[in-house]
C-alpha cells in the first residue's frame, strides 16, 4: 500500500435494502474524488473508512496512523466556541501532545487561511469559512489520510474556488479523499476519480480516462459530464 488508505473486499448492507460493495482500492497522496449520484454510497463508504461504521465484510488499512481526518457531510460544530477553542479540543481528542497543541492549531488554521479568524466565534463565520474550519479540524493532528464528505456543497463560486485551493495545498503530502457530485470540483481537483453507482465502483482512473467513457448520446455539455452520466446511468441499470 502506498502512503494513504487501502480497502479490500469492503462491503456494507443496510438490512435487505441498499448494499455497498464489495469494493477494493489503494488511495495514495493527492486528491482523489469519490463521485456518484445521491444515494450511490459515497457517505457510507466514508463512514466505513473513517471507522464510524463497521463493515459487513472486508477491511480498511490506514497508513501510518490509526485516526484519519474526517469532515462529515453536514458538520454540526459548537457555534459558541471560537475557532481556536474548537480546534484545541479536537487536537486534544486526537492525542496531539499538550506542548504541540498550540502549534498544531495554528498550523491547521494557516492551512485553510483562517489565521485571522482564530479567535472568531464559529457562529460568526461565513459558510465558506465554516467549511474551511471543518477541513482544519480534519487536519489538526496532521493525518496521512483526510476524508472530506462534500466539502464544497452549499458554497458560492468564489468560496468553492478558495476551498479547492485549500484542498490542493493540503494534498501535497497526504491522501485527500473528497466526496462530491459537482463536476467542477472533479475537474478542478482530482488527480484520480473513483465513481460509485448503486453501491458499486464502476470507474477508477484519471480525468482523461474518464472522459473516454463518454457516450455522445449521454446527457451533459462536456465530455466529463457525459462520461459521468454514462457510468452512473449504466451502473444503475
Amino acid at each position, binding site marked *: 500500500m502506498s502512503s494513504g488508505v487501502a480497502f479490500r473486499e469492503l462491503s456494507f448492507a443496510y438490512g435487505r435494502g441498499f448494499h455497498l460493495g464489495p469494493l477494493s482500492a489503494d488511495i495514495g497522496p493527492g486528491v482523489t474524488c469519490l463521485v456518484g449520484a445521491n444515494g450511490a454510497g459515497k*457517505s457510507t463508504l466514508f463512514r466505513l473508512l473513517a471507522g464510524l461504521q*463497521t463493515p459487513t465484510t472486508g477491511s480498511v488499512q490506514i497508513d501510518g496512523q490509526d485516526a*484519519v481526518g474526517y469532515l*462529515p457531510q453536514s458538520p*454540526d460544530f459548537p457555534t459558541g466556541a471560537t475557532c481556536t477553542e474548537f480546534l484545541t479540543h479536537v487536537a*486534544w481528542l*486526537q*492525542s496531539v501532545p499538550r506542548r504541540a497543541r498550540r502549534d498544531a492549531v495554528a498550523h491547521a488554521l494557516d492551512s485553510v487561511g483562517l489565521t485571522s479568524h482564530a479567535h472568531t466565534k464559529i457562529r460568526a463565520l461565513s459558510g465558506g469559512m465554516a467549511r474551511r474550519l471543518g477541513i482544519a479540524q480534519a487536519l489538526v493532528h496532521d493525518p496521512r489520510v483526510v476524508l472530506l464528505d462534500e466539502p464544497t456543497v452549499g458554497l458560492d463560486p468564489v468560496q468553492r474556488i478558495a476551498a479547492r485551493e485549500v484542498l490542493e495545498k493540503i494534498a501535497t503530502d497526504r491522501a485527500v479523499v473528497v466526496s462530491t457530485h459537482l463536476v467542477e470540483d472533479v475537474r478542478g481537483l482530482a488527480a484520480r476519480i473513483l465513481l460509485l453507482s448503486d453501491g458499486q465502483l464502476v470507474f477508477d482512473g484519471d480525468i482523461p480516462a474518464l472522459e473516454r467513457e463518454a457516450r455522445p448520446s449521454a446527457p451533459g455539455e462536456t465530455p466529463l459530464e457525459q462520461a459521468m452520466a454514462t457510468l452512473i446511468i449504466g451502473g444503475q441499470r
Partner: protein
Amino acid sequence: MSVHARYALRTLAGPWAALVVVGVDLGIATMRHAPYLGEGMWTVRWMALGLWILWPVVAAVAAVDAARLTRPGSRHLPFTTRRGRVEYVWAASWTAVPAIAVHTAVIIVALAIGGVGHPRVGWAPIALAVVAQGSTFLWFAAVGSFIGRCTPPLLAGILAAGASLAFSYVLTNVGAAAPEFEVLGDQGASVSQIGVTWNLTHLAVQSVILVATAAVMLVARPVERSARIVPGPAWVSAALATVVVVAVAPRAVAGAPLSAEPEPPDDCTGTQPVVCIYPEHRRHAEPTLAALDALLDAARDAGYASFVPTRVEESSRRYDAADGHGVMSLPILEPGQVDTPGLVQRLLMPGWCPALSADTPPPDAYFAAMQSLTFTWTSVVGEPYDPMAAGLRQLSPDEVGRIQSAWSACDLTAEP
C-alpha cells in the same frame, strides 16, 4: 482560564448546572434558620435534603450534552478520534465535577458558620458522607450521559430527568427511615443528629457502587448502524451490569445505615440545678435557659419545691436523663421563640416510664394531671395555660408533689 475550560463553558450545558446546585443548596442552608447548624452530622445530612431536586437537573443537562455530541454532524469526534471515547466522559465530568465542587463548598461553609471544630462523629465519617453525596452527582451525570448518547437532545433531557426522579424514589429512603442499605439512601435529615452516627460500611459501599457503575456507564458507547446511533452490545451490557449491581447491593450489605450512640450533654453550668446542654446548641440556648430560670425562680418563690430539680439535661435522640428523682429533661434546643407550656411539659414528662412508649396510650388521668401541672407552673410565671378552656385550677404544692411522686414510680393514674 484555559482554552479547554473556556470551550467547555461555551459549548456544554453541564457546567451551568452548578448554578442550580448553588441556588438550591443556599435555599436549603437557610431553610428554617438551619436549626442545628452546629452539628457536623446534621449539617451534612441537612444539605442532602435538596439532592432529589438536583439529581434530575444534573442528569438532564448531562443527557443534553451527550446527545449533542452524538448528533450526525458531531459524532465523528467521539467515534473516530483517538480519544473519542473520552469525549463523553469529558462532557459528563463537566457536569458532575462543578456540581460536586459547589455542593461540597456549601457544606464546608455551613460547617464553618456552624463552628463545627470537633464534630461529635469525627471528621472521617463526615468526609465519607460528603463523598457519598458527591458520588450521587457523578452517578446521575453518568445516567444522563448514558441515556443521551442514544437519543436526540430534547428527548434525552426529558428521559434523563424522568428516569432520575424514578431512581430517587426507588433507590433512596427520602421520606422514610429505611432499616437497610439503599444505593441512594441516607440522603437528608431534618432533626438533630446527636445520638446517632453513620454506618461507615454503608457509606463506603454506597460510594464504591455509585462510582463503579458510573464508570461503567461513562465508558460504554452505543454504535452507529445504518447512519443511526443504536444501543450496541457495550451499551446494553453496561445497562444490565448497572441494574444488576444496584438490585443486588441492598441484599448484600448488612445492617442499618445509622447506628445509635446515645451521649449525655457535656456543656454544664449552674449548681441548683446543674443545667447541661450539648455544646453544638449553645448558640441558641439562651432563650430556653432564660425561660427555665424564670420557671425555676417562680416555682421556688411560690413554694413548689417538687418543680425544682437538682439537674436538668438537654435530651437528644435516644438520650433522656429524666428519672423522676431530681433530674429533668430539656427538649432539643432550637432557634426561635420559647414555648413556655411546651417547655414545662417536657420538663415534667415522665420519660422513664415504659407506658409512655407503649403501643397503647397512657390513661386519661395522666393527660388531665399533665394539663393541671402545666397550668399550675405557667400560672406562677404569669402565663396560665388552658388551651381547652377547661377551667383548670392551680394546684397546691402538696397536690403537685403527690402527682410527681406517683409519676416517679410510674403510676400514671394519679389525678389532680
